[in-house]
């Protein structure tokens, strides 16, 4: 077996071991509240993965996670820690909803792209801000993206409640039918009842797009260079500031697309709290996928499963337990990656033919 394949396998084994260990840790908590972990896990897997409806639900959850995961990953690859996907998702969602109900009646062929572009523009603007602040003033992005999340949440809460809301609700009027994305059940009847919709296809296309940009374009090369060696990139006369702003803008647009899944594909309106931490989950998704765009859909599926699986055992264990399990998984993954980093150089050395020493 060649070196690269071996390394890939070892990394896979590391992730698998982390997942297994998290399930065991979770099992301890389940036992502690007097339940049988095996039975709970079995129920979780069978109700989520064991039938098409459950799979549809997982795919629906995963769709948003793919977008937010890509958003976070593309930033991480350039060395920018974007904690702001949540805010970008909300801003994008509101832009889609407003465009959706304001231009109801346009032909779908026009209205759907218009909504998507509006959402991307909103998210992009929200993503541009921390990128600009960092590039221009060196302001730390972690603080700024977190603060922008608060601003987005408060601003949107005000706008929805006071300007757009349907009276006595916390959501906007519905987008026109022309802006609705069809559910997958319209093509595959087995998904009947589950909200998975065509934004999933958009998500997979986005993953391919980000992969292409990162691996095959000059822009992708430059953004990876600033991520892996910012000083070397500067010495190579790359415009680190401009690259950073471009990446964060792109990242904001990607996160915002995640809202199409809910606003255009599921409820057809913007509802306060719809994002439900999906932006933050993007961080976990990117982490599990090691920021590789092609691995993100799989990582998103995993967290989608965990999310929906949590719902299926809601009646048996407290919801908090599912939160604990998710957190344990994330911690274990981080640990396994650190360990891999420590061990990998040695594996790499032995698996390469004539690496010279000295």
């Amino acid at each position, binding site marked *: 077996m060649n070196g690269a394949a071996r390394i890939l396998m070892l990394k896979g084994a590391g992730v698998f071991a982390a997942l297994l260990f998290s399930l065991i840790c979770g099992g301890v908590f389940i036992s502690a509240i007097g339940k049988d972990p095996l039975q709970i896990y079995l129920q979780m897997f069978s109700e989520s993965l064991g039938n098409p409806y459950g799979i549809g639900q997982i795919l629906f959850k995963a769709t948003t996670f793919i977008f937010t995961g890509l958003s976070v990953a593309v930033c991480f690859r350039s060395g920018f820690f974007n904690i702001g996907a949540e805010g970008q998702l909300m801003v994008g969602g509101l832009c889609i909803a407003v465009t959706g109900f304001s231009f109801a009646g346009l032909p779908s062929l026009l209205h759907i792209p218009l909504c998507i572009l509006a959402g991307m523009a909103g998210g992009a603007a929200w993503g541009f801000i921390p990128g600009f602040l960092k590039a221009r003033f060196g302001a730390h992005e972690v603080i700024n993206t977190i603060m922008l999340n608060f601003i987005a949440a408060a601003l949107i809460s005000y706008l929805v409640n006071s300007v757009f809301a349907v009276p006595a609700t916390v959501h906007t009027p519905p987008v026109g039918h022309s802006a609705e994305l069809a559910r997958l059940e319209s093509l595959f009847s087995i998904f009947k009842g589950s909200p998975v919709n065509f934004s999933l296809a958009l998500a997979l296309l986005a993953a391919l797009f980000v992969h292409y940009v990162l691996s*095959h*374009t*000059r*822009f992708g*090369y*430059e953004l*990876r*260079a600033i991520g*892996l*060696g910012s*000083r*070397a*990139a*500067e*010495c*190579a*006369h*790359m415009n680190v500031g401009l690259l950073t702003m471009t990446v964060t803008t792109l990242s904001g647009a990607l996160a915002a697309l995640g809202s199409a899944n809910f606003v255009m594909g599921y409820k057809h309106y913007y509802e306060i709290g719809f994002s439900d931490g999906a932006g933050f989950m993007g961080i976990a998704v990117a982490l599990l996928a090691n920021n590789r765009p092609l691995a993100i859909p799989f990582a998103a599926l995993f967290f989608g499963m965990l999310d929906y699986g949590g719902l299926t055992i809601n009646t048996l264990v407290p919801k908090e337990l599912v939160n604990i399990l998710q957190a344990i998984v994330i911690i274990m993954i981080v640990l396994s990656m650190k360990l891999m980093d420590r061990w990998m*150089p*040695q594996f*790499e*050395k*032995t698996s*390469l*033919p*004539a*690496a*010279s*020493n*000295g």
Partner: protein
Amino acid sequence: MPSSLAIDMRGITKTFRNVRANDRIDLSVEQGSIHALVGENGAGKSTLMKILYGMYRPDAGTISIDGETCTFSTPQDAIGRGVAMVHQHFMLIPTMTVSENIILGSEPVTGLGRLDARKSRADIDKLASKFNLSIEPDALVSTLPVGLQQRVEILKVLYRRADILILDEPTAVLAPQEIEKLFDTLRTLRDDGATVIMITHKLQEVMSVSDHVTVLRNGRVVLACETATTDMATLSQAMVGREISARSRSSSPPSTEPLLSVDHISFVDRQPRPHLDDISFTLHRKEILGIAGVEGNGQSYLVDLLTGMRQPTSGTLRLHGHGSALSHIAHIPEDRHREGLVLDFTLAENAVLGRQREGQFSGPLKFRRRGIADFASTIIKQFGVHPPSMTQRARMFSGGNQQKIVLGRELTKKADLIIANQPCRGLDIGAMEFVQQLLLQQRDSGKGILLISADLSELLLLSDRIAVMFEGKLVTILDAGTCTEYDLGAHMTGASRRSA
């Protein structure tokens, strides 16, 4: 009087994966002597010393200290037996005072756990006067010149009652005058009964200060003798395993055609003192202009200005013959790990770093993988990069091969001006020779080279003229053919100006 052995290492073997770093090494060091441990990078010196002071455990072999067999699992064990390391990169906290640094980790405390400042002060004074190591205990370490910082490091290990001192390339950062002072200190320590092991690859130093010498090559001892019974030629041959070709400066004179004119440039930022103060010089084609100076005297700012990383506060830079400066400079950065390469990029990706916008490597959007691969394989062939794998990450190459990647990328630019900043730092003799030959070739082909180096013998060997920087000023420009390391040293430490 037969002297006893302070250290007796027998049959030390240490293997890392498939590399045998130490192969049945015997090392005997007499008590009260200075012992030089010599070898190229990768010969196994550091591994052997790390075993001696408890960082690594040997796979086989025994260590005796003062006649007693010991096993060390940690450096703390070693220091308990009086063995301590003075590191090449100082382990000092710059914002603390000299005495705080010296006592760090073994602070004397009163009964209630309060720091006993008076006692520590008295101990340090006693040590300093005993070994003639005068120092100001209340000075902040960050304000001390490098030579004195090293003195603090030495006091630190003496304070821990070490009587066997291992010094890892202690002269690498020092000016010649400081080196003399260090050697005096080592002799004082020896005469007082301490044992000193000095890791080095500078043979003049071996000859001038050591009593015994052990040469390692490829993890084995190839020569061990009294220094007085050997000479530099024998040592260098033992070290490299073959005769070193005599290198000499190019004989043809530099061209008189100016290539780079630097006219009264200064660089000031928030610091009260300017980083660069009214610097002027001209570099000609077919000329190597050396820049000498103790680190931190403005060299890196000068490089930043020339490469366009910073803009001068005043003054002008002019590159003759071409319009745009940036694209016509080949820059070999000081720190190849941080500045020259993206370590986690592959060789091919690094080969185009900074050149990724050239037409053969990319269109407006898409990368031309074919063009990049072709170029990378050219570099591999032309510069002999080993292993010849363009998909391997730069991190996995040895220092010499990493530098070859940088050289390959920079020297194949259509550039007339080459800025080589410490191009041989950390390279072994073979790689060093390669780089130096390459620079001389480039010079002879009509290019102009600005060579910044801390290695004065390298500057003297390669340069046509040598400019000396001190405190941001260009103190003087000397003719490399007629000046000596001592002349340079006098200007580097500002001594020439003070006496004037």
